[in-house]
């Protein structure tokens, strides 16, 4: 059932995210191919990077809006009458939404990274740069970064969904309820960042000196920083499932 739910969820959001990815790719290719014809490359690079930064900011904001729409509209509007009456356990609806958001987070990060490398690091043209970009992403250190990004992504997305769910669970005074939900969410986020900060302040930055560090191959993986994000995310998910069970779709 999870894969079926995920299939329809990705189908619903694919046009929006693919369009944004298309804009990034088109921009990277146009700039990448223009490099041999540009006279003042330093000025062009700075201008292009500023523009790339602006596009990335807009795309990040749109992504947050699309993830919000996908969650809130699909579950708490009229469509919720279909989703919450499907013969599936309610937690699967949440798992689907988290997986879907993580898939798009990874996809957009990957496209942005590749587009950036193709546009600005093409020594011998954009297609050679693409090969460099793939080598960069497959490097072991960056696999660790990828895992860590997903753990943090899982926490942030779960917290985001928890705030939305709490806001929608109000029977009356929805505005007050939503403000309380946001304040609780910010407090929970501060707790998470404090837990990570405490660990780094206590044990320092060097991974090999920190407790709960596991060496895999040539790389040190810190399980506290990874695990705390997952645990904080799981607690937010449990709160959402609890709210689903008390949900009043009116």
């Amino acid at each position: 059932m999870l894969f079926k739910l995920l299939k329809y969820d990705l189908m619903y959001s694919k046009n929006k995210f693919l369009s944004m990815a298309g804009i990034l790719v088109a921009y990277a290719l146009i700039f990448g191919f223009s490099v041999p014809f540009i006279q003042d490359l330093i000025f062009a690079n700075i201008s292009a990077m500023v523009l790339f930064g602006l596009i990335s900011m807009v795309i990040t904001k749109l992504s947050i809006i699309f993830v919000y729409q996908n969650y809130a509209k699909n579950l708490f509007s009229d469509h919720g009458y279909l989703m919450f009456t499907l013969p599936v356990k309610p937690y699967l609806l949440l798992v689907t939404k988290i997986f879907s958001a993580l898939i798009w987070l990874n996809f957009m990060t990957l496209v942005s990274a590749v587009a950036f490398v193709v546009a600005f690091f093409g020594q011998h043209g954009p297609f050679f740069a693409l090969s460099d970009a793939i080598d960069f992403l497959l490097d072991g250190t960056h696999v660790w970064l990828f895992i860590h990004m997903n753990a943090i992504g899982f926490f942030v997305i779960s917290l985001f969904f928890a705030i939305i769910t709490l806001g929608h669970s109000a029977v009356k005074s929805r505005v007050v309820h939503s403000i309380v939900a946001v304040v609780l969410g910010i407090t929970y986020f501060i707790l998470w960042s404090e837990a990570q900060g405490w660990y780094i302040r206590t044990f320092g930055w060097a991974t090999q000196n920190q407790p709960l560090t596991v060496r895999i191959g040539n790389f040190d993986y810190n399980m506290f920083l990874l695990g705390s994000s997952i645990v904080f995310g799981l607690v937010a998910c449990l709160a959402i499932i609890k709210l689903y069970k008390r949900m009043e779709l009116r």
Partner: protein
Amino acid sequence: MILDIKGLYKNYGKKPALKDINLQIPTGRIVGLLGPNGSGKTTLIKIITGLLSQYSGTVKIGENIPGHLANATISYLPDKSHVPTWLTVSRAITFFQDFYHDFNKEQAISMLHSMNIPLDSRLKHLSRGQQEKVQLSLIMSRKAALYVLDEPIGAVDPASRDFIIDTILKNYDSKHSSILLSTHIISDIEPMIDQAVFLKEGEIFLQGEVDDIREEKGSSLDELFREVFKNVV
């Protein structure tokens, strides 16, 4: 018993929405849940389908309480457009086939063909009436134990009402299923229902076999409804 409700109470804040509801529906019955707007019909239906979870009393659908297990046996038509409108009609059929084991795809396609609804159209490109017909076709193409239809004829023109009632009756299997149908338009559904439940201000005001009520009260359900709710409707 397909539906068994005992001592059901539901409040919205301090305001009571349902008071001491007792309702049993065996197999093979078409039950009309009748009452004016605000009488508690939709609240009762939402409790049965698991959309409202805060209540007291017992509600059983077959052996299950409202929730995902019960949802496998309930085919629910809400009073809203609940099927996502970005889906094409054929994709909506596939959606129902993916999630409901009792869904009959051929039956759905046949019903939609008979209504001249193009399968490759997105729901958002269809008229509201066509969207409602698509939803009804999907709901009635399931072989569910209980069909719960919330105001299926409430917002359609008289010609469409006949079509909807005809569709419900044609596709309902009285040997294995029952229908709970809410409405405030009595005259159109009176000939098809076996049992009537009158809701007034969240309480069951009157319930029984339609023939018995007619005989006892000496009037049709429609006349009785108008009399009872003349100051409410």
